[in-house]
């Protein structure tokens, strides 16, 4: 006969410490009763051991950083980083699969340690999110502990490595034996493993350089942030033309005494267009006429001009306490003084609008004669020989009349691996979204 549960005594917190089966009392879930009195390091390990372990790892990391007098982790380039990563992945997988019943290994790949490591990563990132990640005086405490470059510091590297080991172990148990219901888990965890490990192990191979190319000239030199001497690139860039399109200009009231724009006005900057009205503290300004491209004509009245030479002019009427004043304002250019209207010890100015788009017409070619003609624009990089070329900047003082273009060139051989990870996480996300909804519907 099957034992029959007749009644369950209700214990503390709804836990059931004993059951009556066939009129006998059996103390059930002895484990639960014992867990609170489990001594530290008595298996099965859980949160206390994980927290202790994580804390020791963080402290060890900071100690190494301090002993290395603030020098961060130096990582090897290709192919050595790829070899190291592969060996590490194989090691984690074989420990996971070979010793899957060992209590320590189980703990090492479990959620308690995972949570503590996530907490440690969060804590280190918090340092990185609060302490400015900029150069500080060498020898100062933040520099010695790597607080100002936390993401390449020893504690961060150590915690990430442990995290990858922890995540890798839990992953190995879901990969072998493979079950379709684990796909969501695998996509999330393997995706994150790949993106994180390749992003970090691959970082030494990331090359970011800036090229300055003059209009009508060619260059194959790139500069890094760290060094003054340029590096020769495997291709060169010829700049046909740089051009910039701006938003309409803006009106500003300027107080020459305080040498500052008046706050009220700068807060509510108004884009200039014919018919626009703006008012600040009893001063009303109306734009009577607006010429986006014009040049000063005879008797002070601007005349429309072509777009290369012309600058924006606006005719304004200012009404305040006295009689209305009318006049022309202009933004000026590197070749021309701006025009302003002076009234009541204030100056009404027109500033060029912020840039809307800027682009470089370029031809890129390598030594073998391979070449492409392209337009570089912000958000529209081009790819050439595994390099990505980005429109980065220009001579901001000259604005539309800039004679050169700044082009950032980037080489990142690990990008496809990181993107693979991203897309796996997104696929896992979609499944999670779908299953989450199904679960909730089942529950409701």
């Amino acid at each position, binding site marked *: 006969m099957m034992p029959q549960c007749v009644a369950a005594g209700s214990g503390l917190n709804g836990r059931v410490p004993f059951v009556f089966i066939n009129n006998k009392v059996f103390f059930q879930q002895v484990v639960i009763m014992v867990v609170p009195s489990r001594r530290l390091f008595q298996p099965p390990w859980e949160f206390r051991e994980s927290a202790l372990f994580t804390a020791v790892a963080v402290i060890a990391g900071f100690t190494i950083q301090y002993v290395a007098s603030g020098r961060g982790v130096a990582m090897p380039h290709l192919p050595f980083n790829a070899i190291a990563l592969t060996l590490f992945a194989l090691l984690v997988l074989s420990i996971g699969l070979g010793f899957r019943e060992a209590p320590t290994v189980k703990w090492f790949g479990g959620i308690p340690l995972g*949570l503590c490591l996530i907490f440690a990563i969060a804590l280190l990132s918090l340092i990185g999110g609060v302490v400015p*990640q900029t150069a500080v005086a060498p020898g100062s405490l933040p520099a010695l502990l790597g607080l100002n470059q936390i993401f390449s510091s020893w504690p961060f590297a150590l915690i990430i490595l442990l995290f990858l080991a922890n995540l890798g172990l839990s992953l190995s148990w879901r990969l072998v034996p493979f079950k379709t219901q684990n796909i969501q888990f695998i996509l999330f965890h393997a995706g994150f493993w790949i993106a994180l490990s390749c992003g970090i192990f691959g970082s030494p191979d990331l090359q970011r350089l800036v090229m300055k190319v003059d209009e009508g000239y060619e260059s194959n030199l790139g500069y890094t942030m760290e060094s003054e001497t340029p590096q020769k690139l495997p291709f060169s860039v010829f700049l046909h033309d740089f051009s910039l399109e701006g*938003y309409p200009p803006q009106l500003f009231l300027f107080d020459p005494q305080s040498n500052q724009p008046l706050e009220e006005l700068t807060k*509510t900057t108004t884009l200039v267009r014919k018919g626009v009205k703006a008012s600040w503290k009893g001063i009303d300004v109306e734009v009577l006429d607006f010429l986006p491209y014009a040049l000063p004509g005879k008797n002070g009245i601007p005349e429309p001009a072509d777009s290369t030479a012309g600058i924006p002019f606006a005719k304004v009427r200012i009404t305040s306490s006295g009689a209305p004043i009318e006049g022309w304002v202009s933004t000026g250019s590197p070749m021309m003084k701006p025009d302003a209207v002076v009234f009541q010890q204030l100056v009404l100015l027109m500033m060029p609008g912020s840039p809307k788009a800027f682009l470089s017409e370029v031809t890129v070619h390598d030594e073998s004669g391979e070449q492409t003609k392209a337009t570089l624009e912000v958000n529209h990089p081009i790819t050439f020989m595994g390099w990505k070329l980005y429109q980065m900047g220009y001579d901001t003082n000259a604005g539309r009349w800039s004679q050169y273009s700044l082009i950032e060139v980037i080489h990142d051989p690990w*990008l496809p691996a990181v993107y693979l990870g991203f897309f796996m996480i997104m696929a896992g996300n979609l499944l999670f979204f779908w299953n989450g909804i199904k679960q909730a519907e089942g529950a409701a």
Partner: protein
Amino acid sequence: MIINFTTAAIVAISCWALGSLLSFFARKTPALKLPAFILSFGGSVVMVGFIAFYWSLLDRPPLRTLGETRLWYAALIPLVGFLVEYRWKIVWLKYYCMALASFFLGINMLHPEVFDKTLMPALQSPWFIPHVIVYLVGYVLLAASSVTAVHNVSLQLRHKANDAGESVSHYLALLGFVLLSFGLIFGALWAKEAWGHYWTWDPKETWAFLSWLAYLGYLHAYRYKIDRAKLQWYLALSFVVLLVCWFGVNYLPSAQNSVHTYTQS
């Protein structure tokens, strides 16, 4: 322009206030239910209309400044409240949501300078709108999850039974996490196109990562043997991290050279 916003905001806040009042009385007088809903819903409709108008006026989506994103929160948060009422028959959430939305509009009325008019080239990307919308909806869900968790905690403290509430806060957090993950990855893919690298530990990115970690931790704690009642505290507090990420970052010392603090240009 600002005048129009003030009018829209006042109309929306009045709709929410009156709607809340009516739906409070609707407990005794069920006939008031429908008008109460129409009024409360109307508040969000006004905000959606204003956003549409503002979008066409600016010739760009109003998603660039904090002030502009607050417009979206104000329109969307009450909708989450209504949805939860409809789906789980939980009535009280919408009051918190409408109060939160009114609070956001209030901030905008006090600081009209948060309205700005131009969109810098890096933001003119096909990734921009999905990235920001996904984040907005995610934050709205997590805000609702937090509000639910606070309510659950207060019920716990008064020893009231409340199983449904805990599953609501969990489900909202789960959906919010999904959207945060998408937002984070969309942001990374966009950053690669616009700024050259997918991840630079910029303060804003770091804080977005931190808030993602907070909810990642929650999901795993939930899966493990951790007491669900205690996790309500966790959910309630996680929102603080989100708030820092969302507007606190601009005031942190680390943010001086962030590419994401557009408002301080």
